[in-house]
């Protein structure tokens, strides 16, 4: 059984005919072609599928697509604006905060959510905010440094 589900994706309104047993992640990846959100464990352990729903970081693999009706959804594809990387993306690049890259979409979405709420987070706040995102390559240190760098850049874009 399919239902029409209208929501906002990365600032644009969209309406999709989604099977009601499909997750938001399936609709994003296979319905809308937005493959930036990764399908990792698919059961809520890894955080690779993290997206923002009404500004909150949630797992799209455990969100039913129909439950996203009327919501504002932001994926990794929505972070860059007008051809410019989001400061989080830029900082992850500059700091070498990724290796294989699989966890990065979710990691950067969680980092974006953190900086939206705490523009100048402590290391403890950063660790807590990213604790639902697993990275098997980096050991996290460069990821935390990238979050600090992004916060610095947002505080003073000229720096």
């Amino acid at each position, binding site marked *: *059984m399919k*239902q029409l589900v209208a929501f906002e994706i990365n600032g644009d309104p969209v309406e999709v005919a989604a*099977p*009601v*047993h*499909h*997750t938001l992640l399936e609709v994003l990846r296979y319905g809308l072609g937005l493959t930036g959100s990764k*399908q990792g464990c*698919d*059961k*809520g*352990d890894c*955080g690779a599928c*993290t997206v923002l729903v009404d500004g*909150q*970081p*949630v*797992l799209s693999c*455990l*969100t*039913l697509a*129909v*439950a996203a009706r009327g919501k504002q959804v932001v994926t990794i594809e929505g972070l860059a604006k007008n051809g410019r990387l989001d400061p989080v993306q830029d900082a992850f690049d500059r700091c070498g905060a990724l290796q294989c890259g699989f966890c990065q979409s979710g990691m950067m979405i*969680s980092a974006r959510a953190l900086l939206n709420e705490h523009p100048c987070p402590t290391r403890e706040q950063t660790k*807590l*905010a990213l*604790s*639902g*995102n*697993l990275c098997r390559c980096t050991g996290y240190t460069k990821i935390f440094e990238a979050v600090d760098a992004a916060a610095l850049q947002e505080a003073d874009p000229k720096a």
Partner: protein
Amino acid sequence: MLRLPPFEVAEPTTVAEATRILKERPGARAMAGGTDLLPNMKHEITTPGLVVGLWGIPGLRGVTLDGGHLKIGALSSLHALSEDPLIRAHLPSLAEAVGQIAGPQLRRMGTIGGNVCLDTRCVYINQTYFWRQALGFCLKKDGTVCHVVKGGRRCVAAASNDSAPVLMSLDATLKLESAEGTRIVPIDDFYDSDGVFNQQRRPDELLTEISVPLPKPGTIAAYTKLRTRAAIDFPELGVAVLAERAEGLVERIEVCVTALAARPVRVPLPLEALKGRPLDAALIDQVAAEAYRRCKPLKNIATEPAYRREMVPVFVRRAFRLALARASA
């Protein structure tokens, strides 16, 4: 890739509509945050034909102070509760417990009602259908044997809700609504020792509100949790403690544990021997030893039962130290 088996979805906008659907459609499952139900459906541990989504029902979120009780809406997110000013001020051990459930994303999705009604967990059940089939299934779903207790006839999957022992120590009551009416159940009576389904809640009933009496002045409480990683993991042991004191002397003391058996347990303590004494190291050691004597974990979680048992007194002591430190801060 883990696909959900096909099902229908209902999106009621009132509790009355939700409970009517649950009554009319036996086998339907209510879904709040979905963070427990959907993985279990992906693993085909439960395969409802109809999912009754509760996300469109207003009025079941938030905390209010009402006549000496804190009323917690069952759809309040775990994240919201961990930061709620009323909860942090009056029930710090609850804020502590819900703030340690899973990870940040899951705490924004998961609800307190969902955590209270969390399905039991076991190393032999929270696996894919293929995995469970290869083992010949088990008592909890599709099979007739228990892999934890050889020859066991009763499922021993572990209660894994962090909120339950804290709410038990705080004497919470649960409001269950159905098409038949409303009933209030003390949380001690809500849980059963059967891991297949460890609750008194009928399939057509919804948990809509949790009521917690305001602790007496001078009460101290804390929650400590053993797990392999400091995030995401379910508890391997959860310990909630509470002590009521008058002029520095113990009037009442509670230790409640989770993740050891099919139900969260209020550890029986010899209160008469503890009353009237200061809450010092000797008394805490005595309570910790009593908890050790009473708690006998099983091999239902990957972590060794012997290790988890040794950790019981350690975590009881840590919880009391945490509660005392908070009280003197």
